[in-house]
């Protein structure tokens, strides 16, 4: 139930977080859209303003041209009627502005092909007109007024002028039409901008509302979760205390069990052994009696009685003795193991290099006997643990390695160590006879051994080692192939934390 509600809260929180992120992203996107739309609208407006301005400039240029053309025409006519130099000056002045005015206009409308064509017409017309005007002006200059007026009447410059007026007017109209078109475009741009802005604002508003709602729900969930968490914490502490108490009780139960075994199993053994010895002594007397009787009166000693006294009794007594001795050893082993669990651990900083060195010295004569060498790969990691326990673990494992070396090759036992996270790993590797993989779990069991039983021992060492390793909060395992050595790997916490049940 606890786990289920945790999952629920986690799922809910994750979903809320995802929703919030989605809302935020959506809000930002709307904002970005609005900003882009605004930028686009501003750009369009700037363009529009530019083009409106342009239209006015074009119109102005057209007007300038037309005014100059009219002025030039008026001045020419004035000159023709009244050949005063004032008119001649006016004409020159107006005529000289015509060309630049047309150039300016051409420069302004260079992007519009239709207008460029019209300007071309204007330019040709102007050239023609100027030529004709120049002829009449030249005739007036030569005082041939009659000729001049005749030429003026015949050269059709009036019609030409009309044509040019029409073209200029067309241009102005076209420009106006363009302006109207741009105006309409501008209106639609504003409309689009307003729509985009409206949509973005609506989206933002929606995001704000949804985010606020989600946040409120999240906060509500959070507060209820923290309340539940506090409840759980309290009950967890209770649960831990309860478990610890259970463990302590179980441990005490085991201690009592060991005590009962030690007393109640040994007490009958004392009797069995004691009375077997008494029986032995009695059998001895009986044997003497049989011997004596055989000498004095052989006929009263039956074959059965002789066999019983000389063979059956000693044999039975011998078996009883070896069995009881064996049983005593086993009981002592159980006792030793259980007692190890009761010893108070004393963590201290251990120089494992020195420790293994000392173990090597103690086992030196056995190494020499077996023609073996012990190689320690320095440095071994330092650990804070119970010195006696670590010493017993490593001694037992190394001793085991020496015990089960292959007799036909020189022994080589390598001790190495390293740190892995918060654990120290020690490895004892040998090139001995190895352990059948089927027996890997079994070798750590009490009274269980593997391979040929050619070495002394009761199958206690590794069981003892494993009990100690567990006690120190570690694990031990073995990798081995039959015939190619074994490698024992001991993983211990770098720092032993004393458990509560260590209190006396």
């Amino acid at each position, binding site marked *: 139930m606890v786990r289920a509600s945790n999952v629920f809260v986690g799922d809910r929180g994750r979903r809320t977080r995802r929703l919030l992120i989605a809302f935020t992203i959506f809000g930002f996107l709307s904002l970005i859209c609005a900003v882009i739309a605004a930028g686009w609208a501003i750009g369009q407006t700037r363009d529009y303003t530019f083009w409106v301005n342009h239209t006015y400039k074009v119109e102005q240029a057209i007007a300038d041209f037309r005014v100059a053309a009219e002025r030039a025409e008026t001045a020419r006519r004035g000159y023709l009627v009244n050949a005063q130099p004032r008119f001649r000056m006016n004409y020159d002045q107006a005529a000289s502005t015509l060309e630049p005015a047309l150039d300016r206009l051409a420069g302004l409308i260079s992007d519009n092909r239709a207008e460029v064509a019209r300007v071309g017409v204007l330019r040709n017309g102007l050239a023609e007109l100027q030529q004709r005007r120049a002829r009449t002006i030249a005739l007036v200059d030569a005082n041939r007024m009659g000729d001049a007026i005749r030429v003026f009447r015949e050269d059709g410059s009036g019609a030409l002028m009309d044509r040019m007026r029409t073209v200029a007017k067309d241009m102005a109209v076209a420009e106006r039409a363009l302006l109207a078109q741009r105006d309409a475009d501008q209106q639609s741009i504003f409309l689009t901008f307003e729509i985009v802005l409206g949509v973005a604002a609506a989206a933002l508003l929606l995001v704000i509302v949804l985010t606020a709602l989600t946040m409120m729900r999240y906060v509500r969930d959070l507060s209820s979760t923290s309340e539940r968490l506090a409840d759980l914490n309290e009950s967890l502490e209770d649960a831990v205390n309860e478990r610890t108490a259970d463990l302590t009780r179980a441990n005490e139960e085991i201690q009592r069990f060991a*005590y009962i075994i030690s007393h109640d199993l*040994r007490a009958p053994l*004392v009797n069995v052994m004691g009375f077997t*010895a*008494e029986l032995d002594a009695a059998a001895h007397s009986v044997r003497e009696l049989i011997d004596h009787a055989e000498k004095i009166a052989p006929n009263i000693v039956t074959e059965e009685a002789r066999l019983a006294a000389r063979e059956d009794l000693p044999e039975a007594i011998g078996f009883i003795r070896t069995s*009881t001795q064996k049983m*005593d050893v086993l009981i002592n082993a159980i006792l030793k193991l259980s007692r190890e669990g009761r010893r108070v651990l004393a963590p201290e900083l251990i120089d494992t290099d020195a420790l293994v060195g000392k173990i090597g010295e103690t086992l030196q004569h056995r190494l020499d006997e077996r023609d073996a060498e012990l190689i320690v790969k320095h440095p071994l990691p330092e650990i804070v643990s119970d010195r006696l326990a670590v010493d017993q673990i490593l001694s037992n494992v190394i001793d085991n390695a020496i015990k089960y070396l292959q007799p036909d090759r020189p022994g080589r036992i390598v001790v190495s160590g390293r740190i892995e996270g918060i654990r120290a790993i020690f490895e004892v590797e040998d090139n001995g006879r190895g352990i059948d993989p089927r027996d890997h779990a079994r070798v750590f069991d009490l009274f269980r051994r593997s391979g040929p039983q050619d070495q002394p021992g009761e199958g206690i060492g590794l069981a003892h080692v494993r009990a100690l390793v567990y006690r120190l909060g570690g694990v031990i395992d073995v990798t081995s192939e039959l015939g190619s050595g074994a490698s024992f790997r001991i993983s211990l916490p770098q720092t032993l934390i004393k458990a509560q049940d260590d209190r006396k």
Partner: protein
Amino acid sequence: MNDHRSVSIVMIEDDEGHARLIEKNIRRAGILNDIRHFTDGHSALDFLYNSPQGPALNGPALVLLDLNLPDMSGTDILARIKDDASPLKRTPVVVLTTTDDKVEIQRCYDLGCNVYITKPVNYENFAQAIRQLGLFLSVIQVPEVDG
């Protein structure tokens, strides 16, 4: 010899077999003192404190005590005997038991036990220990009970 005979041996041992073996070996060591055997704590305490033949009222004694008894713990009996207010507090107590638990041994000595002997499963050792105890009995001076 008369002297020693006056010291009676009180054996509190629930296992009849052990009691028999202990007695046999004490006798083999040449000790002829009177041996009173009790298989439970209550009758033993009753004898020690209240019986007219018991050590509290009549003469010195030596107590051979097994720790595991059916009705009460041997250490309780030891504590009763060695209590400051007990008339038997100077009576030597030999704890003879199967447990060689260090804590248990320490506790017995703390309570005032005079000798602690573990019953070995190996009979020769056991017999040896009892015979030596017999020799020990033959030389110790057991104090008179104070009143």
